[in-house]
């Protein structure tokens, strides 16, 4: 099984030199800690920053400088600030190469739901609907099952959708999943996790042969 850092480290393998990347709140944020040495990746924060740096040193927090998770951050040499329309302009125009975001549910068609539980929780979609409608590569980082132990990889989403047929890859504590015409495809297993265990915990249609390799990192 992967822990949160393991999921982030696995997703970091999707990064390529020169990528512009938008990381969502939660596990996706951790991906920034696993950018390989020597690889140049620019992080886009949709509140208006390209070239996001690490958290500031204690005492150097700037209330005018935050990321989309409202955390205090820093800039790097070459960073740029812009307004929210330009920020979503570059997203909509397909300039952002990779988006990593969390989800409550993903369907076997690649639909994603992550912004609302009717009658219970309404936080809003923030920038997620814009990102999933336009980013070139969309990877979901999430726990495989919800708190009640039910699969979050489903035949169809039961919650209000964020986007339609847009997710290309899902990484959970159990493995890495892609999509084909039939549904989910197991690509890699988390270390020590068997295919039967993954099948048992996946409600959506899953293609898995048993020969899928364990996840390994460079």
């Amino acid at each position, binding site marked *: 099984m992967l822990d949160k850092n393991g999921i982030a480290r696995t997703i970091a393998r999707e990064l390529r030199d020169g990528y512009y990347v938008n990381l969502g709140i939660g596990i996706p944020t951790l991906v920034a800690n696993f950018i390989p040495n020597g690889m140049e990746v620019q992080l886009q924060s949709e509140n208006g920053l390209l070239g996001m740096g690490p*958290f500031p040193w204690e005492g150097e927090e700037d*209330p*005018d400088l935050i990321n989309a998770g409202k955390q205090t951050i820093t*800039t790097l040499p070459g960073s740029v600030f812009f307004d*929210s329309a330009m920020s979503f302009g570059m997203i909509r125009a397909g300039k952002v190469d990779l988006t990593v975001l969390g989800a409550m549910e993903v369907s076997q068609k690649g639909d994603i739901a992550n912004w609302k539980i009717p009658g219970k929780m309404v936080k809003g*979609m923030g920038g997620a*609907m814009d990102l999933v*409608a336009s980013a070139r590569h969309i990877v979901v980082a999430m726990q495989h099952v919800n708190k009640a132990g039910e699969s979050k990889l489903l035949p169809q989403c039961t919650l209000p959708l964020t986007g339609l047929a847009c997710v290309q890859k899902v990484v959970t504590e159990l493995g890495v999943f892609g999509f084909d015409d039939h549904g989910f495809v197991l690509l890699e297993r988390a270390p020590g996790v068997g295919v039967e265990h993954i099948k048992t915990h996946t409600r959506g249609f899953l293609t898995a042969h048993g020969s899928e390799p364990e996840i390994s990192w460079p």
Partner: protein
Amino acid sequence: MNKGARAGPGWTSGLEVDVFLRVFKPMNKVFTDALSALHDLQDGTTLMLGGFGLCGIPEHCISALVQKDVRNLTCISNNAGVDDFGLGLLLQNRQIRKMIASYVGENAEFERQLLSGELEVELIPQGTLATRCLAAGYGMPAIYTPAGYGTEVAEGKETRVFGDKTYLLETAFDADYALVKAWKGDRLGNLVFRATSRNFNPLMAMAGKITVAEVEELVEPGALDPDHIHVPGIYVHRIFVGTNYEKRIEQRTVRPRS
């Protein structure tokens, strides 16, 4: 035009008088404080408020709205503040009738009023929010965006296919007032923002029928480099200096010094 040039008799030769008045009307947009700048803001108004989370919010304008106790407001803002700061103050006071936002996760009172039906809420994608502001400021009645297609955001909206993608028609906002916070400004209303406190502020400044800007520093015309001005003063109607900004931090994240 020379930097030191001033409007004077020499400029009027050949111009009609009304053109002269339109071109050279007085340009002093400075008010003393938030209350005077918002003197005519009434119950039932639709207003835009800049800021992302608590970053770059018009703190003094919000305080003045609380003080004036104007009610039945429709507020267009990316977020709704936190329980005891930002737009949360207006929510606590039940001054907001309808909220148009993209993310409201940080405000328990908001969620309570929403789930109980006391507050009318329209949640829209953040890029749609920004672009509907932009459309208003650029004089365009509507824009097409793919965000929200196939979701409940698309319900009742016109769609159109361009290439291999379906887009939603989203209309420009129509707000009575835009309340924004800038870093520096001059009496002509030219504005400059700082770091990520820019966010929605310039867009809303350009979209308001009456735009009120609060600034940390009011400078003389000419002090701002024309190449570095983010919002031309033509969009800004009133400006005042805010003092003692609280600038509350929502998530203080640091690297501890070892």
